[in-house]
């Protein structure tokens, strides 16, 4: 029977089992479960948000149904918590074990494979099928936190170079501005450009699944692998559906993580048939326009300079009562 692992002894056994199978005990997690045989832990697994991890079965008990039972329990509990799609990172050699459980392989690079339970990617792509006009299309993936004149400049240049431009707004809720607000700023800021279509990335591009370090500060070495998965998934599964043949990106002089992501794009996308076009950042006052600069100004209450950095539509939103609530937390400082 699958049970929650809660006591100190449970956790000690879980750690030992994971380490014996070459894995690490990684906190945090939302759920940690296992199966005991004669008082000894023989199978373990955990869920953190949408990701299943720390899945291990003792060598003496492999070949049976223990993994199935653990994954069933984690998915069942997760579903009750409101999670409707689940992801697993594993080595490509172990991916078939999960494919027999109806996990689908999304992308695989050297040492890591990313699998998804259910057909979320297919449903995501199908949702946008009616908006796609086949042609020489392009894509931009951006957080738009908030939508700036820098974004606008990149979108204009890209839109002029392709038949249809998809502006993918990052779905993840890890930014100052909530997704709905970022989506609306992107839509309002590009409404006059007829060949620009604004859509969301769901979990499949620059998300906490495909690219968790995007939301952290610089310098996590594990981020490199996940950047690769993010780009492979984009090139192999997302771009073909949208007839996207070029990805547009602004040069990144400020943020190390984004600069490394741009560099990975140049390395990974062209061999897979996606051209990468990097545009020089738009400057204001000899400084590149960046969303983080605007967030800093907002949080410091320096509103005067912002009008020169964002489109009118974004300024209207920032100064609306809804917008003020977002950046003026707890009254002006």
């Amino acid at each position, binding site marked *: 029977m699958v049970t929650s692992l809660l006591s100190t002894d449970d956790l000690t056994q879980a750690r030992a089992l994971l380490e014996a199978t070459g894995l690490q005990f990684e906190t945090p997690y939302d759920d940690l479960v296992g199966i005991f045989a004669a008082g000894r832990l023989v199978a373990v697994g955990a869920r953190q948000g949408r990701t299943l991890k720390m899945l291990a079965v003792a060598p003496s008990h492999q070949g049976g149904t223990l993994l*199935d039972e653990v994954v*069933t329990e984690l998915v069942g509990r997760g*579903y009750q918590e409101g999670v409707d799609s689940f992801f697993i990172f594993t080595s490509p050699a172990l991916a078939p074990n999960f494919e027999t459980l*109806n996990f689908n392989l999304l992308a695989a690079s050297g040492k890591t494979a990313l699998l998804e339970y*259910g057909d979320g990617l297919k449903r995501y792509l199908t949702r946008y099928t009616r908006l796609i006009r086949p042609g020489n299309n392009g894509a931009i993936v951006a957080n738009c936190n908030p939508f700036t004149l820098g974004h606008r400049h990149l979108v204009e240049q890209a839109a002029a170079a392709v038949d249809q431009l998809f502006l993918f707004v990052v779905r993840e809720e890890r930014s100052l501005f909530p997704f709905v607000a970022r989506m609306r700023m992107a839509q309002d800021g590009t409404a006059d450009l007829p060949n620009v279509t604004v859509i969301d990335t769901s979990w499949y591009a620059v998300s906490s699944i495909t690219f968790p370090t995007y939301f952290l500060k610089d310098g996590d070495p594990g981020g490199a692998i996940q950047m690769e998965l993010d780009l492979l998934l984009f090139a192999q599964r997302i771009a073909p559906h949208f007839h996207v043949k070029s990805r547009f990106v602004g040069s990144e002089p400020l943020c190390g993580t984004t600069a490394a992501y741009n560099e990975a794009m140049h390395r990974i996308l062209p061999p897979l048939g996606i051209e990468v076009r990097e545009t020089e950042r738009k400057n204001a006052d000899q400084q590149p326009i960046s969303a983080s600069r605007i967030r800093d100004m907002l949080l410091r209450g320096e509103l005067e300079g912002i009008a020169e950095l964002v489109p009118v539509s974004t300024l209207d939103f920032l100064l609306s009562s809804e917008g003020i609530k977002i950046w003026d937390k707890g009254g002006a400082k």
Partner: protein
Amino acid sequence: MKIVKKAQAGTMQSSDLMVFLEPAETLNVTIESTVLKQFGALIRAKVDEMLQKHGIDAGEVRITDRGALDYAIEARLETAIMRGTEG
């Protein structure tokens, strides 16, 4: 009858299936199976029959199957439907 709340039944073990139900405006059934090529049509027919039997005309129905036999499909769907429709 409508699916009024999220419900789930079944397991991921071999010869079993997992059923996920969610409220939705229309009836939408998706089936994934390790034996979809061989038995997809038969699984679909059985699922439709069960939904019809319980008069389910709206809801999101997602099934991931690992070669379950007819009576397993019936039992898992019936359980999920009872969980997803009761007050």
